[in-house]
């Protein structure tokens, strides 16, 4: 494995749904072990971009490689090393937390243990709770645990902490920091500036289906001549994130 080879490579991606163009031209290069943030307002094309990288949608145009694999052609191989948390995916509503964790663990050859996964997302006390009885934040945390079940080398997290209370949010940040320390590559879609600033090595600002800027958080702030990442985002896109969040 050569370090010069990116973990995620997306070149000139484009995707339209009927009359709307969701992604016009997005290119990203995420290095091994890097945490890349994807920042944008609702409808900017963030989710479509990560869904194409995850192999859920075929791009109309462009080329994608994740650890050198084509997400659609090499589906079976990529699924073992890629963990994905989708924004509004649902799970079997009548199953208990522990049953869902064990189901998702069973898909992988060398999964994390059930106890470790529950502990990572603070759901040990809810292990016997039926999925539909969980709060929104707990469902979200379970979804993150399932994304990490197979010890992925690349993780895509769509709206990591949306809907979480401040304590749970900090706990998730610690979890991501630990993944990073283990050399896992993370692609983090977010609305939350504080989260992106704290966790991400670099940030791609996406608007109207295009990458407007790609730099370190500090670099973005300096480039926009702004005081904070918030101000830099407004300067770049002319939009405020807080309104849509």
């Amino acid at each position, binding site marked *: 494995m050569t370090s010069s080879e990116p973990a995620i490579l997306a070149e000139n991606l484009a995707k339209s749904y009927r009359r709307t163009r969701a992604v016009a031209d997005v290119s990203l290069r995420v290095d091994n072990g890097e945490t890349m943030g994807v920042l944008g307002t609702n409808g900017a094309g963030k989710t479509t971009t990560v869904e194409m990288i995850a192999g859920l949608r075929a791009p109309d145009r462009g080329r994608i*490689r994740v650890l050198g694999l084509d997400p659609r052609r090499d589906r079976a191989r990529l699924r073992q090393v890629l963990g994905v948390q989708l924004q509004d*995916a649902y799970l079997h509503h*009548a199953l208990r937390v522990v049953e869902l964790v064990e189901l998702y663990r069973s898909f992988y050859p060398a999964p994390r243990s059930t106890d470790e996964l529950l502990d990572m997302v603070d759901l040990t006390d809810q292990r016997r709770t039926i999925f539909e009885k969980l709060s929104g934040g707990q469902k979200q945390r379970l979804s993150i645990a399932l994304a990490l079940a197979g010890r992925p080398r690349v993780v895509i997290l769509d709206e990591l902490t949306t809907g979480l209370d401040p304590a749970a949010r900090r706990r998730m940040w610690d979890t991501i920091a630990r993944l990073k320390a283990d050399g896992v590559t993370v692609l983090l879609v977010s609305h939350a500036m504080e989260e992106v600033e704290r966790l991400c090595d670099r940030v791609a600002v996406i608007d109207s289906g295009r990458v407007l800027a790609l730099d370190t958080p500090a670099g973005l702030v300096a480039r926009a001549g702004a005081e904070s990442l918030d101000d830099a985002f407004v300067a770049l896109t002319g939009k405020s994130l807080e309104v849509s969040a």
Partner: protein
Amino acid sequence: MTEAHGTLVAAHRPGVRSLLTLVGCEAKMVMRDTAGLVVPLGLPLLILLTSASSATDQVVVNGRTALDVFVLPIVLTMVVAMIGIVNMPSFLAYYRRSGILRRLAVTPASPAMVLTAQAIVGLVQTIIGITGALVVAYVVFGANPPAHVATALGVLGLTMAAMYATGMIVAAVAPTPNSAVAIGLVIFFIVGALGGMFGGRDALPDPLAEIGGWLPFGAAVEALGAASAGTSVEVAPLLGLGGTVVVGAVVAGLLFRWE
């Protein structure tokens, strides 16, 4: 090209252990869905209890009574049809609608695995329903075993395939879980009514009776009745069941969408 580290990833597909875990989860989903669990097992039993006692003393042929030749085939076909046409498609439609299949699509699990697990759970539920009905029929009402056991089992297997195929058509055309239940129930009652579920097909107008004999419910009742009586099973009902499997597979293959 930069394929180097991707080639280090060995292709691994979830194996039997994973399928069994999924089967266990699907079984729990079914068990925790009270209506889906009780109706396909309870309703046929109710029909059996209300119509068996009067049917035990009418010997039809070869020492087999009306219970053996008419009532039991209807009861068993009902169990298979409800699970295949109503339950299974409503689960699949719910999985598709709720995003569960999408979530599974980003794991190494394949949609085919979900379908296989559902089919296994449906099969087990069907076997439990059929066993329950047979135990009641034999123990309480003194029913007789089929004259041709192997033929009866073969017909039951073909009936299951035909009902699942019909269920796959329902799952393919239903846009929502609710519509899957509605479409499934309508089809169940149409094939049931034309197939003798509410009384013999003889009472129906000739063209309807003819059509009902070709549709999977009537065909199954006809063939099971013949196997039970020990008379030869006609070709027409077997063609009806086989044809349903083919039509179901083709329609579902063309129209079924995972998303």
